[in-house]
């Protein structure tokens, strides 16, 4: 394993910003190896990917002889943000995942994403691991742009996630890592799972198995071990129902995340601690799986409380 600095910049006061990549490859030189890149920490408040990459690096260290491709790991793209609990790039307040493709002549966040994109370029597959944010808890899921789904969907199905959400092309999302790399010819998948600022160990292990499964299928590792790849449900066979707060207050959930629920089941209440009033009771508009649930309890009118994947004949 070799650690390389893909970007560095001298900060104003006695510190160097350094973005690092670790590379695992066969000890014997081989030709035409496939390459996979695993990226995380684009948002400084999302840490689930750090754990997955740790698990993967640990597995690769123990199984060096099984490596039959190039595996590049980028655990902390927004290194300053991660160490300061800052979602965007500190000081500039820029969402790095809206700053691609960046450029050498741009401001510092633009230089960082440019360096990343240029380094990942040429990979056969890239996986961009996101937690949700600090507000929502998500089941392990893959987000795929319809524009690239013909090539990315088969890989997504190998990743041992519970849900694959295929969404329409949106112009603003052209500034993301996944769009940029897909356009460069790297089949890029976005994973969303867990919650911001925390680790969900079981999800980390679940995704590790998926990544190993995908790498085995692609011949990047040679292993006799059978890695689990559960059958995900696809957004196209049902409907995603959004439940936004009808009023501001303190959201108290009644159900557990991932619960299978029935239509009109109570999801939670929005209350006012000052006077003890229940301001709103939230009911499910559809039966299905509660795959997103609000984690941060303070809500404003419009705050997302939950998402249900249900039957499309009950579209809200």
């Amino acid at each position, binding site marked *: 394993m070799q650690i390389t600095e893909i970007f560095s*910049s*001298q*900060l*104003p*006061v*006695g510190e160097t910003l350094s973005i690092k990549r670790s590379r695992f490859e066969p000890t014997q030189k081989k030709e035409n190896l496939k390459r996979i890149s695993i990226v995380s920490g684009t948002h400084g408040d999302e840490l689930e990917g750090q754990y997955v990459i740790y698990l993967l690096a640990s597995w690769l260290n123990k199984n060096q002889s099984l490596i039959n491709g190039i595996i590049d790991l980028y655990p902390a793209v927004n290194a300053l943000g991660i160490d300061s609990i800052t*979602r*965007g790039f500190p*000081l*500039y*307040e820029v969402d790095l995942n*809206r700053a691609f493709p960046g450029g050498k*002549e741009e*401001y*510092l966040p633009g*230089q960082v994403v440019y360096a990343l994109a240029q380094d990942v370029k040429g990979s056969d597959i890239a996986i961009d691991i996101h937690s949700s*944010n600090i*507000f929502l808890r998500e089941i392990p899921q893959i987000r795929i742009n319809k524009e690239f789904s013909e090539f990315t969907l088969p890989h997504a199905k190998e990743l041992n996630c519970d849900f694959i959400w295929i969404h329409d092309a949106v*112009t*603003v*999302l*052209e*500034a993301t890592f996944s769009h940029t790399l897909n356009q460069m010819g790297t089949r890029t998948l976005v994973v969303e799972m867990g919650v911001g600022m925390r680790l969900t160990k079981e999800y980390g292990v679940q995704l590790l198995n998926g990544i190993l499964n995908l790498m085995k299928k692609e011949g990047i590792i040679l292993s006799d071990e059978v890695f689990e790849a559960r059958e995900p449900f696809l957004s196209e066979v049902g409907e995603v129902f*959004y439940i*936004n707060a009808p*009023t*501001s*207050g*303190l959201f108290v959930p009644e159900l557990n995340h991932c619960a299978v629920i029935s239509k009109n089941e109570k999801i939670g209440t929005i209350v*006012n*601690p000052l006077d003890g009033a229940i301001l709103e009771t939230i009911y499910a508009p559809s039966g299905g799986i509660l795959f997103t649930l609000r984690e941060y309890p*303070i*809500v*404003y*009118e*419009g*705050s*997302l409380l939950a998402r249900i994947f249900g039957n499309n004949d009950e579209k809200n």
Partner: protein
Amino acid sequence: MKKIEILRINSLNRAPLIVEGYLFEGSNPDAPTVAVVGAMEGKTILPLYTASKLVDFLKNSMSDSQNILGNILVIPSINHYALNINERFWPLDKTNLNTMFPGYAEGETTQRIAKRLFDAISGYTHGIILENREDLSTCFPYVRLFQSGYEDIKNAKKFGYKIVHHKELRPTDTVSLQYNWQLWGTKAYSVMCPNETQIDMNSSNEVLEGIISFLNKNKIIKYKVLNGYESTVVTKEDIEIVKTPKSGIFIPTKQIGSHVIKDETIGKIIHAIEGEVIHRILAPSNGVIACHYKNGLIFENAVAFRIIKNG
């Protein structure tokens, strides 16, 4: 003048956010109309101040209300919650209102705010958005127009600022107010204000006079006003970006608006610990300094100056 409620959002622990607009009804129903949007972000002091002074001007300085010809709607502040606690974006989820347009009535909080605001300002002939630059620099006042296919450069010159920046459209600009306002038929202009934490009377007067000039020249008001500059339209090719190869303490030695000649020292970088000058920033060409970095500490390869090239 009518004070109208544009939107209201309740909060669990803060007083409700009530956004109000000031509607000055024109005397001529055939005259063009304008809506002016002030502070959408916190930390945008000059947009807030300019919009509030525009309300004051229209209310107290127009001696004859008949001289207001077309309807004028001024909304000085949208994001009081951020302004009051020195946050830049929506304080709970840190989303940027100016990336939420045209908004969505059933969406997240800032999408709803954008939708209600957008509904209130739709249908005007002209739309003026008072903004700060999103990067860490300050500038002289200018108009920014996206190269969207809907822009009106001729009218943008009527503000009389030194430049109209005709800027390439990025994917993220497609969710901005300016772009969506134009898409829906309003001639929208972003007036870029100097990025200041305190009010500088010279620059704030320049911004306000530009808006009054625009209103007068478009026959929305009748008010004798001194002409400003004959604006120069500037594109990417006209702008020289001057970066610093060293990080440290940044001291600009030439002010915004200064004419500079090639190889003249315009700034310096001081070693943050040892105090010596570690880099002198030289003008790469003749021109006028339009922007410079505004913080005391500067990153390596950060943009220190933007110079509009002469010659």
